[in-house]
């Protein structure tokens, strides 16, 4: 289950991560590594412990025990340094609805310490790339859902973080927009940003370089999508998941 070591140092190193809430063990001795520039899929049923693990990796919560290093920083003592080097986006919250597109970009740029001048430069680039010049001064709540998700992702990587964490980013969105979103993910990965993504869409798992599947707080499978399908003798990640979850 432990992947083959790359010659480059992994950007996320997790060894025996345990997280307990009173006596309930949410994460049970998780061990895995994520390579730089990888698109890493983190799958599992609701309640399997995914959200708990992500929060720890983002520096939002402390582990009970185990070694965790994210972007070279230790999760116990350097959580604030971790936060400076990562981006985060989730389905539940992305951008402030009663601010405009540009206001949101400036806000997050400012939070991550980018200079005013640099923010303006990158904002222009972003507006051109997404083709949103016409709506850049509209309130987020007046934009369709698909645009919001794509914008949220752009804002999450605006400060060129080393890793971006995406928590079910494509829920409820139409299939074309979903794919456009994944285009953006591919591009970010191509530019060297490591992408750590969770999703309920099993076909999206296939877009990842490697996938891990959690059941009841443990990682029960971790490999490339192709290898997983071969190992379990099935045609899709969906079926891999079904086989694992049923046992």
């Amino acid at each position, binding site marked *: 289950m432990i992947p083959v070591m790359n010659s480059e140092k992994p950007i996320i190193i997790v060894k025996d991560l345990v997280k307990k809430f009173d006596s309930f063990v949410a994460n049970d001795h998780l061990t895995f590594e994520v390579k730089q520039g990888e698109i890493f899929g983190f799958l599992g049923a609701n309640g399997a412990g995914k959200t708990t693990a992500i929060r720890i990796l983002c520096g939002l919560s402390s582990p009970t025990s185990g070694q965790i290093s994210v972007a070279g920083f230790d999760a116990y003592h350097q959580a604030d340094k971790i936060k400076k080097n990562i981006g985060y986006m989730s389905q539940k919250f992305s951008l*402030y609805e*009663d*601010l405009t597109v540009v*206001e949101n970009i*400036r*806000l997050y740029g*400012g939070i991550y310490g980018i200079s005013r001048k640099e923010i303006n430069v990158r904002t222009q680039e972003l507006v051109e790339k997404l083709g949103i010049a016409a709506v850049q001064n509209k309130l987020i709540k007046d934009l369709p859902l698909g645009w919001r998700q794509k914008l949220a992702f752009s804002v999450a990587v605006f400060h060129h973080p080393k890793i971006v964490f995406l928590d079910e980013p494509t829920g409820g969105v139409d299939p074309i927009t979903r794919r456009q979103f994944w285009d953006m993910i591919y591009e970010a990965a191509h530019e060297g940003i490591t992408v750590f993504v969770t999703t309920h869409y099993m076909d999206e798992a296939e877009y990842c370089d490697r996938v891990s599947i959690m059941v009841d707080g443990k990682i029960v499978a971790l490999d490339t999508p192709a290898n997983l399908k071969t190992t379990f003798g099935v045609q899709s990640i969906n079926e891999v998941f079904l086989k694992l979850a049923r046992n």
Partner: protein
Amino acid sequence: MKGFIIKEFYHIFRDFRTLIILFGIPVVQLMLFGFVVTNEIKDAKIAIYDQSKDQVTQKITQKLLSSGYFLLDKNIKNYSEIESCFKEGNIKEVIVFESDFARKLEKEGKANMQLIADASDPNTANLLVNYTRAIINNYVAEMAPQAKIPLQIIPQVRMQYNPNLKGVFMFVPGIMAMLLMLISAMLTSISITREKELGTMEILLVSPLRPIQIIVGKVLPYVLLSFVNAVIILLIGNFIFEVPIQGSIILLLAESVLFIMVALSLGILISTLTNSQQVAMMISLVALMLPTILLSGFIFPIENMPVVLQALCQFMPPKWFITIIKSIMLKGVGLGYIWKETLVLVIMMSVFILLSVRKFKVRLE
């Protein structure tokens, strides 16, 4: 950091509700407090029992009435009328001059008066008596230079219904009104809006249940629980604070149930105004609690407020309920004296229920 602060300002100015809270409420509160919180007396209704009707008593009477503090409501002719004056509730003080007042004062230098105050509101009663005394002393001081012998008018003071001027006599009815209003109205409105927020209201609507069934089903437990609350408050008031229950306990409980129903129907009405529990709670607190404390006569007498506010007070259910409760508990009146106030509560309840049923949405829009 700066960007974050700017963002917060955007949020505030773009949210109408926050603006109302920031600016609207403090202004309203200040205005209310300014006008309501006053310890001065103005136009208090009194009755005079003048057994002499001579020059002196008329002079004193004139002084009293021209002071601006008092308004003559009635001239009464015998002692038995005093009781009914108070029971009717308008008259706050009865001033009694003994017979042969002027002659006794001239010949003996002493004449007797009685000041009987309705001490179911002990603060007001105290103030009234003190003002009266001050005016009387003033008269004596004026007359002193011309008098042949030292003059003395020391009135005998009686605090009716509350001889020891216990504040708790006023608080218990007020607190009962406030608690019942808060609990019944707020909890009912929260309970109904919670169903809307959770989405279970949708399922209830798409069922054979009629709206009236949904409302009654939600409200009935609160009626029973509020009633238990009311009984507890009365017991504590009576046994621990020795607030008397002079009148009929059955009548007292019946009126309490009526008020509970008014509060509940208000709660239902509030729940038709919003889909959010938080907003329902806020409306209950601001629109109900504040007026209950300030505008019901609980702490600050209504008669001392500007006319506009006095008119507003008439629309407050707690105002009528407190009058009813005080009358029954402290003055021992029967339905005969408080049927008007009771009728007002019945009308209020009917109006609220009618409005609620009409506004209760059978659909989601």
